[in-house]
């Protein structure tokens, strides 16, 4: 990890931890916006992190951004900072000035849409910015706001460069969710290990039982696979742009979706009854894992896309294609 990245990760870790652990998660699930967490992150200039320095941003790489999203996921951070970063990056790339505040992505089931002042829409290469005029509240299984929005007339518009492609929004969101999944999985693995070392049954910690050890070890393998897949996808975006990184992003979302399913099931199996209580923090992460695997394209949808591509290219090209994409 580069030094810059380590510093950023540490900063965000601290901000999120200072916000009170799972307190903001409970807050947002009860219908309130954790404004101070948002403000804290905003003050670091995070919203403009993916905007180039020459355009007034921080100029982070996607690799750095993915590392930050992983930290946000690790804490379940219930603010649309990752989404806003993506929206700002696209606006800036299309030459549109980035407004302050929360950016909503799209108008259907928009993450934290009710808290957004503006929304970003993409039609082909044409990116438009709209004021948010109303929101019909909705929620995903993680009880994060997912709202259908009423948008006003576009307030600005621009054309995304070819390097971004017509699916830049979906692909960006897929990478965000995959990175958040990586972080949340890391978290529940750590929680499960702690619990296994603490909880005693039959006269010893349950972590001494081979069945528990084997399950958590298998889970660790999945966590590692997601982390690598996310790094690989972010690196591909840095090397070739969003438009040409669909394969790597799709791979990351597939592996993340599978690992989210397996990891949540495994953690709950280890935690048994205590893990399904509202008082315990586990479910804040498992419910988000179940929700995030559906967003930005399910693992099924992305697998179909990657699979179609592989079938069309044929067996002889599979390995050459895979290695040719080394960033």
């Amino acid at each position, binding site marked *: 990890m580069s030094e810059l990245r380590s510093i950023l990760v540490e900063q965000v870790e601290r901000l999120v931890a200072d916000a009170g652990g799972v307190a903001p998660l409970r807050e947002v699930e009860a219908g309130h916006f954790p404004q101070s967490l948002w403000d804290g992150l905003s003050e670091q200039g995070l919203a403009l992190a993916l905007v180039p320095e020459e355009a007034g941003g921080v100029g982070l790489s996607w690799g750095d951004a993915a590392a930050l999203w992983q930290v946000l996921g690790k804490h379940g951070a219930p603010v649309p900072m990752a989404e806003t970063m993506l929206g700002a990056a696209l606006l800036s790339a299309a030459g549109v000035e980035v407004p302050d505040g929360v950016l909503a992505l799209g108008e259907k089931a928009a993450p934290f849409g009710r808290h957004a002042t503006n929304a970003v829409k993409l039609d082909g290469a044409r990116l438009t910015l709209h004021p948010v005029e109303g929101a019909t509240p909705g929620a995903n299984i993680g009880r994060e706001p997912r709202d259908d929005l009423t948008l006003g007339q576009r307030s600005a518009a621009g054309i995304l460069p070819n390097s971004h492609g017509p699916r830049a929004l979906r692909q960006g969101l897929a990478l965000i969710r995959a990175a958040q999944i990586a972080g949340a999985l890391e978290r529940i693995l750590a929680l499960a*290990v702690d619990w296994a070392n603490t909880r005693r049954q039959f006269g010893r*910690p349950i972590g001494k039982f081979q069945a528990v050890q084997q399950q958590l070890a298998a889970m660790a393998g999945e966590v590692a696979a997601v982390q*690598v897949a996310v790094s690989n996808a972010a690196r591909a975006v840095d090397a070739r742009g969003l438009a040409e990184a669909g394969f790597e992003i799709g791979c990351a979302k597939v592996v993340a979706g599978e690992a989210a399913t397996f990891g949540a099931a495994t953690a709950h199996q280890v935690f048994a009854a205590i893990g399904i209580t509202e008082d315990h923090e586990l479910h804040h992460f498992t419910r988000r894992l179940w929700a995030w695997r559906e967003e930005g394209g399910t693992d099924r949808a992305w697998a179909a896309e990657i699979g179609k591509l592989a079938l069309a290219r044929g067996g002889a090209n599979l390995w050459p294609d895979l290695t040719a994409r080394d960033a």
Partner: protein
Amino acid sequence: MRFDLPDTPPGAEALRAELRAFLAEAGRAWTPDIRARSWMGFDRDFSREVGARSWIGMTWPAAYGGHERSGLERVVVLEEMLAAGAPVGAHWIGDRQSGPLILRLGTEEQRRRILPGIARGELAFCIGLSEPDAGSDLANLRTKAERVPGGWKLNGRKIWTTFAHKSDYMIALVRTSPAPEGGSRHAGLSQFLVDLKLSGISIRPIRDLAGADSFNEVTFDDVMLGEDDLVGAEGAGWAQATSELAFERSGPDRYLSSFPALSQGLDALAANPVPGAEVSVGRMVARLSALRGMSLSVGGMLERGEDPAVEAALVKDVGNVFEQVLPEHLRGLLDPEDSPAELRALLAALTQLTPTFSLRGGTREILRGIIARDLGLR
């Protein structure tokens, strides 16, 4: 645990191109069974050709026949060989384990005696670990080497030794002194370089369920070893062998064993489309891509001189599951009656081989135990 993707080594493209041209040519002669066995296939002629092209001992010093290239360039060679299902077994162990061991811990004499032959693809190695009473539990080894004037006298029996009957040397882990009362059960083990032509050695091939004879039982009956056949430090064999295993566990051989079937399966599915197959295919390809990233990350750590023991165990665990289920996933897509004969044969061969994937280099249970300890379970 920590995985960082390394940068692609300069010249990788050109190297891949060379390898592909070579493998396309050589591959004409390979039957499905050969491709299915890949690094479980033994072909001295092929290994000599690979050696002649400087693709063995790639990272070793030129003084010992090596080619002083980077570890990541070496990974390019390994990947290409396995993706093609090349029969690399005659040089694989020497290149991957025994050569590096001798380079790291061997005497200067041993290096000069052994390494150039491995690099030329001429010296084949096998690893003597398991014994009838010590499978996963290596501390229970009973084969022993006793000090005698001028060297060591070796007695005992090794089992499941891959290619012992075709190899030139074995690196054997044996007991040189009893485990100390109340001390570590792993103390008192040492590694030896055993010339398999020595008298007192008898090798009995063990046929496997598919009828192949890759395994052996090797019996040592008063075999005389010289002073200079001890590898590394006396009594440090356990630690030496363990770090060797970590090295072994992360290679592309831990997730690519079934790759030729995936590649051929894609063609069969393109020729006879199966509705919905793209989803399963996509899942396999995504996992392949992630595994490759994991394996490359460990390659990068090794290149930087780090000790990725746990990361390597994770690669092997996730990779073995992938290798084992891949033929089943394909079987779930392609009805055998509609599949091309060559793919059918490849899948049949793999079906009989897959049980070995989670044995070699440590069973799944052992690996997961290592990972669990690293996670902090206690």
